[in-house]
């Protein structure tokens, strides 16, 4: 798994590549929480287009990002879900809780 952040306007995009599982989800969590809590980024967009596999600990990291973003009144968005990633969020009844977009552009434009 590889994770990197980049600026796009006032938003930060978190690019994740590879499988997100118990082995590396702590790193995903750390990067997301740092963006939200320390850098106080108003809009964090997680790019999952390079992620084929995500387990429940990966989902938990995303849920934590979402919860923290709510307390800080910032935005937390996902895009580029593979069928497998979407299925996992559906199975955990979380797909409707997240703001999910088809592309980075849509996530950036969203009000």
């Amino acid at each position, binding site marked *: 798994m590889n994770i990197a952040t980049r600026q796009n306007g006032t938003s930060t995009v978190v690019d994740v590549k590879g499988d997100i599982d118990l082995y590396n989800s702590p790193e995903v969590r750390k990067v997301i929480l740092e963006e939200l809590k320390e850098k106080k980024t108003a809009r964090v967009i997680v790019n999952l287009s390079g992620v084929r596999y995500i387990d429940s600990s990966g989902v938990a990291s995303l849920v934590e990002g*979402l919860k923290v973003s709510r307390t800080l009144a910032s935005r937390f968005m996902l895009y580029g879900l593979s069928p*497998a990633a979407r299925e996992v969020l559906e199975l955990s*009844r979380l797909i409707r*809780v997240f703001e999910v977009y088809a592309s980075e552009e849509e996530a950036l434009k969203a009000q």
Partner: protein
Amino acid sequence: MEHAVKLNFPSDPRYLGVVRGAIERFASLAGFDEEDCRWITLAVHEALTNVIRHAYQNRHDQPVEMRLSERDGGIEVLMVDHGKGVKPEQMSGRDLEDVRPGGLGLHMIREIMDKAVYSPLEGRNELLLFKVKGSKPSVGE
């Protein structure tokens, strides 16, 4: 040969990917379609992360054994650990209406597999997972 493929490995999350690689191919061999193979891999993976986190309390050097077999028109996975067992009734998922991290694994396992039987025995805990061909998880209710 009753158990076709046996895997032994340490309770280290490093090896999760290797185990997934074997499970996914075994499910495909057993005749499941690509989507089902993904589901089965997820369920077995979740059960294994539970062994690492709960039975072995995140110690990474403990032995895990997994036996994969084709049985009764489906796939059977037997997972064995020698860690801390709990009473079967303490193995419970949580209410999913509450949005918070964690507590999703058992829920996923039960949705995906047709059978999940946990047996805490003397110094040895077994989890038996089974899924027959053609049964689908009830995604999104």
